[in-house]
């Protein structure tokens, strides 16, 4: 049976919520401000992920809304970064963090059928373990 990620004991903190909402608010005003605050706050992909996963367990529709906001912000940054002459290294870093976050969320949301296939395939690989190299 597929179990969507469940990080029991983890709760969305006020600081996380504030950081997240403030960043999204800034994004609407200015991309430069958004990127600057992204670094000042030191928000990482992991922060976004843990926040969204917690939210996912508490309120799926709200979580989906935030995921969509991040998806849009990535597309927007990608499109406008060069035009605004933003620091390319910073933009690249942000985009790769955000993309990795979106990737994690997409894997967490894989269908039951895909998770069953995953289980089946790794079981078959494990049966052949004598042929697998060890670490």
């Amino acid at each position, binding site marked *: 049976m597929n179990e969507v990620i469940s990080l029991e004991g983890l709760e969305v903190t006020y600081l996380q919520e504030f950081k997240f909402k403030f960043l999204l608010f800034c994004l609407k005003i200015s991309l430069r401000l958004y990127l600057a605050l992204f670094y000042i706050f030191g928000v990482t992909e992991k922060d976004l992920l843990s926040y969204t996963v917690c939210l996912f367990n508490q309120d799926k529709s709200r979580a989906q809304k935030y995921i969509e906001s991040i998806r849009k912000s990535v597309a927007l940054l990608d499109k406008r970064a060069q035009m605004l002459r933003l620091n390319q290294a910073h933009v690249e870093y942000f985009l790769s963090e955000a993309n990795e976050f979106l990737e994690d969320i997409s*894997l967490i949301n894989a269908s039951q059928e895909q998770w069953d296939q995953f289980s089946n395939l790794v079981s078959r690989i494990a049966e052949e373990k004598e042929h697998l190299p060890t670490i």
Partner: protein
Amino acid sequence: MRVYICPKAHKALKDISKSHKKEDLATKIKESVSEASNFISQKPPSEYPSWIILLGKSGEWSLYKIRVAISGKGKSRGLRVYLACKNDLTLLLIFHLKSKREQYTMKEILEFLKNCLVSIGKT
């Protein structure tokens, strides 16, 4: 906990060792895998450090992603390290990214696993 590496991951580790001699990224990956395996076998998910992500479960297997802890930004980017775990058995799966912006999908992970099976069949 016994850790097995899929043949493709084994090749990827060797390639990484060749191209990152100074940082010894392959060693860092091995250390991270060992550390992550200990956490996974001994602690509940709520106590995992932030670099271990439980992506999901099916049957007896769980899929985790680990972020390799190395100094300097971006060195591990372009690599994805996953662990498939069942009781005392852990399979290490390493993916190379063609582009930093590319995202892996479950479909691609399944494709990778199928290819692993094919390559095992050839040995």
